[in-house]
């Protein structure tokens, strides 16, 4: 079978403030072999009427993925590397539970195909020791895949955070968000952020 050469010491670091909305990551994402030439990454204007701020969002690969737990068809699985995979095409019944329940708003449903698809950390690449497509093309450092030490050297005034609180729910993820130095969590609670 496929031989994996996963580099366990490398992690994904996301810094939404660095996103310049260039969509290069989308173009690269569509090149990922596991997506069927569809981009799974999200690049949004956060509030177009108020500001030019854009944000990029990949799957955060939660430790206890809500998408997988709410799937009625057992179609979403997390593997031993902590990667939460796209829906199993044989099982997905296109109910949208995962799309609506993911706290990060990541999964996409392709209705005609009756299939949910999402970022799977470019499994074809990362399992072979390469970086995800989006991280190889991001020109502004909003998306980075590498070692924690390298990231610390590049961003001395930031801390990688992989714990989130959505209202009362704590979520721990495999992917990190770069926060002000010393931060331990990112709170999303109806506008109350710290």
């Amino acid at each position, binding site marked *: *079978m*496929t031989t994996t050469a996963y580099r366990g010491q490398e992690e994904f670091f996301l*810094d*939404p*403030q*660095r996103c310049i909305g260039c969509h290069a990551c989308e173009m690269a994402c569509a090149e990922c*072999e*596991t*997506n*069927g030439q569809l981009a799974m990454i999200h690049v*949004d204007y*956060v*509030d177009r009427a108020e500001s030019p701020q854009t*944000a990029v*969002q990949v799957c955060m690969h939660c430790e206890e993925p*809500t998408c997988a*737990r*709410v799937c*009625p*068809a057992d179609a979403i699985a997390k593997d031993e590397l902590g990667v939460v995979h796209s829906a199993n095409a044989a*099982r997905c*019944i*296109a*109910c*949208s*539970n995962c*799309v*609506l*329940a993911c*706290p*990060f*708003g990541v*999964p996409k449903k392709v209705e*005609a*195909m*009756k*299939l949910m698809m999402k970022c799977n950390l470019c*499994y074809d690449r990362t399992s*072979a020791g390469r970086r995800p497509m989006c991280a190889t093309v991001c020109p502004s450092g909003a998306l980075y895949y590498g070692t924690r030490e390298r990231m610390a050297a590049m*961003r*001395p*005034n*930031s801390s990688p955070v992989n714990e*989130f609180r959505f*209202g*009362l*729910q704590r979520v721990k993820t495999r992917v990190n*968000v*770069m*926060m*002000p*130095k010393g*931060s331990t969590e*990112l709170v*999303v*609670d*109806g506008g*109350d*952020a*710290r």
Partner: protein
Amino acid sequence: MLSTLNIRALGWALLASALLAASVVAGSRNLQNFDGALAAYLFATLFAAFGIVYRYAVWLQRPPTRLYWRAGWRLLFSRRFPAYLAELLRRLVDELALQRFIWKRSAKRGLAHVLLAWGCLSAFAITIPLVFGWIHFTLRAGTIDVYEAHLLGFHAFDFPLGGFVALNLFHALNWSSVLVLLGVFGFLRRRITDAGQIATQTFEMDLMPLVLLVLISVTGLGLTWDYELMQGRAHAFMAISHAITVILFLLWLPFGKFFHVFQRPAQLGVALYQREGEAGAQAVCPHTGEAFASRMHVEDLKQVTSELGYDYRLTGGGSHLDLSPQGKRAALAKAHLAARNESGAFFG
């Protein structure tokens, strides 16, 4: 193992197996029409039925599955019964028979899946009644070239040997094998050439089912090859090797990839749920101001996530699940911006 045994599922599985065994006895007229040579196939089928019902019953107990199972049946037999029955029948043809959604994934996948699925389903439709003794054939008394087909012990129809009907009846499983092989080779091609598939597939879930289907089809065709071209000299080998592969398939049916055959009809219940949702109130995202799902679906998901141990309620009232996917992404970005802003530096 006993500590994880699901008693309710065990009850359903035992009941289903007992009913199936009883239907075999009744349908074969107290086993008088049962072919003893097929006993191993029968026991493997009974085991498969037990396993499938057990797994299905466990599956239905999961909160999200239970939601759609109950809602699907409730909606079908609601006051909209005629409309929902029509929807169900339309989707039965479109999604389960023609499998149009797989063609949308790719035309080659669609073709391969339709060939494989109908090859397998037709083979089951032929094999199961024969194994159960529900169908059997006899030579019409006083003739040497007319067969009588019997269904559940009742005479069904006659057909002459050597004719079109006889050719297709006796070779029906061969036609099924050809369909299966064509479909399997379509999928094998994909599995050994598609880089995405190569990266994510596993032997037991993706390749072994295809290998098993090739073995079943080839050994099945071998039986005809043997009696048509080898004067039956290899019959014992062909019969035993075919039986072994089919029985392995049946024993593995509840555990492996083919269980999706039994899960797929859930898509029809989901379709009724979504149609009911479209007709009702819509959930409007507080961020985008646009409808993104049915209110029923969002409320049901709050209940399901709660049953699963998640609590997405916001401290100031409302729920994180009230946001659309885009709204959730924006909320995260805003929270991140606010945290950076508070720290006095947007970058660091």
